[in-house]
């Protein structure tokens, strides 16, 4: 089993690395087409022409684009990701500080989405063939029409402002100073046994994670329902029925195991959408993650930060696809034998 997983990881790595190189070229070239001059943002308006040129040369922006790319990618391979132009700190630090927050948000969102999606999917399967199925189905289409960033605003309006029961800005209460051990606030709070901080972080993540989950759950629900419907026509289900096994047991012990695979594929393919969705949700909730960093960098035309943030998004998506590939093999006995 372990050998198989390692083989998959190796095979993915061979595909992923050239892919990341091409992606980095794409990001680099698109960003160099920008009609704005990043130097203009950092230099004083009274600077003399030779000072402008010196700053430009300092950041390597005077060289042709292919040369700039080779310098950048060469540095990246030697572990130097460059410095942010406007923040004047290492890009790696900026991304390292914000990425854990975004990963936490995405994982919580995925957790909520799976719970809501599975619950709703099983319900819809349970009521199949009745009027309630059509109602649930149309309702799920209506839910699909709410993109995550609109959910975010609705949740803030309702739960945050109208009822005022949950906080909706930041990652934890302003009264806390986060211990900076792993960067993952939940882990850090557990390590330092800081109960109030854990509680505060939990309260802060519910609304943004729920906004993402509510947009994602209908997809899970619909795929789960349709794959369960398909599985239920298989011979082994009929056999199980003939053996007198209860309908619930058939569903949970036999059908769900096989019905879950297409759902898993969907979650894997769509995780990129969920992860990309964190970008806007972070802005709306003032949540200090990668999305907030990227939009701030966009406002300052800070090219090194923008390209690194964009590349990080791609790395996370490719990594999550790999995880799904491995899970798929672990869960699917048919693939395990090969």
């Amino acid at each position: 089993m372990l050998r198989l997983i390692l083989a998959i990881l190796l095979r993915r790595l061979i595909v992923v690395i050239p892919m990341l190189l091409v992606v980095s070229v794409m990001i680099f070239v698109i960003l160099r087409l920008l009609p704005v001059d990043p130097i203009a943002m950092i230099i004083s308006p009274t600077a003399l022409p030779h000072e402008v040129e010196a700053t430009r040369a300092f950041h390597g922006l005077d060289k042709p684009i292919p040369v700039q790319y080779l310098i950048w990618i060469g540095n990246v391979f030697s572990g130097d990701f460059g410095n942010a132009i406007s923040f004047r700190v290492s890009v790696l630090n900026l991304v390292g500080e914000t990425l854990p927050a975004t990963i936490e948000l995405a994982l919580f969102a995925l957790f909520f989405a799976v719970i809501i999606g599975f619950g709703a999917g099983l319900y819809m399967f349970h009521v199949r063939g009745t009027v309630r199925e059509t109602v649930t189905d149309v309702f799920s289409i209506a839910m699909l029409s709410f993109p995550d960033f609109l959910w975010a605003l609705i949740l803030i309006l309702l739960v945050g402002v109208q009822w005022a029961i949950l906080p909706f800005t930041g990652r934890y209460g302003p009264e806390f100073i986060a211990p900076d051990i792993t960067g993952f606030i939940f882990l850090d709070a557990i390590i330092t046994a800081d109960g109030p901080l854990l509680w505060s972080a939990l309260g802060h993540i519910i609304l943004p994670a729920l906004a993402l989950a509510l947009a994602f759950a209908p997809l899970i629900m619909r795929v789960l329902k349709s794959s369960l419907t398909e599985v239920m026509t298989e011979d082994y289900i009929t056999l199980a029925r003939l053996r007198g096994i209860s309908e619930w047991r058939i569903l949970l012990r036999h059908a769900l195991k096989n019905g879950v695979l297409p759902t898993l594929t969907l979650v894997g393919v769509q995780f990129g959408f969920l992860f990309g969705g964190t970008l806007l949700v972070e802005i709306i909730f003032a949540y200090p993650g990668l999305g907030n960093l990227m939009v701030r960098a966009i406002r300052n035309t800070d090219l090194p930060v923008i390209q690194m943030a964009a590349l990080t998004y791609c790395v996370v998506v490719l990594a999550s696809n790999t995880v799904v590939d491995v899970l798929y093999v672990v869960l699917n006995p048919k693939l395990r034998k090969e």
Partner: protein
Amino acid sequence: MNALAWRIRRLPAPLRSGRVLIGGGIVLAVTVIAIFAPWLAPNDPQEQDLFGNIMPPAWDPLGDPKYPFGTDNLGRCILSQLIYGARVAMVVAVVASTGAMVIGVTLAHIAGYFGGWIDGLITRLVDLWMSFPPVVLSLILMLGLGVGVSNVILAIILVDWTRFCRVVRSDVLVVRQRDYISAAQLLGFGHFRTLRREVLPSVMPLIITLMALEMGIAVVVEAILSFVGLSVEADVSAWGVMVADARQYMYQSVWGLILPIAAITVTVMGFNLLGDGLRRTLDPRLRQERHAQA
């Protein structure tokens, strides 16, 4: 009554579906509003009334019948902005999804029909594109292209062609195994003619369904880009811009926020219902399933 039932049964399948009728109705209504915006809007959407900003809707005792849905923080008529916003949304939806469809479907046909290295190349390209979260890719593209409706359309085309390519390719792969494709080739049809006359018509139902769904996605993407301030020019009314502006004064009034959100979701829902209804009625596999059930 019988005559009516008989007539309904004689309608083409899609028109008998409630989803298609409701979804299509919503889409048609938004289209009509977009086309006739200058006649329907009570005010100039960009005209500011700085003495009457953040006014509640007309049904509120403090409202002004001149502004049926009230005004925003700059005193602009919310209803008129909503009506004009439908223009941006519909233009982006129609043009962007058509563009994405043309590129995606063309590449899907080439990949699925010819197979071999060209299929491998196109599939790799799609995988590459899909490793970008769509929001991130469209943000970077908009940054490179600069704001403007035509650039939004271009960005959506460049991001979303993969949605068509991926799905249509696998259908083309199936279709090209059919006997009538070999028959067409034996009759001396060239590749282009085979693709256009035999392959394309059989994947058309799928393309129509995907188009409807893509239009909904395009409306959302436009709203997202407007929301971040990377979409339309400053003097154009768009729903996403309204949402972003209204967020700043949502403690004073919620109408400026709720109404454009409602406009976006109702429009997207129209496209989704239409797409889902078309999928159910046009997809022969699903149709057979339902016949078997009945």
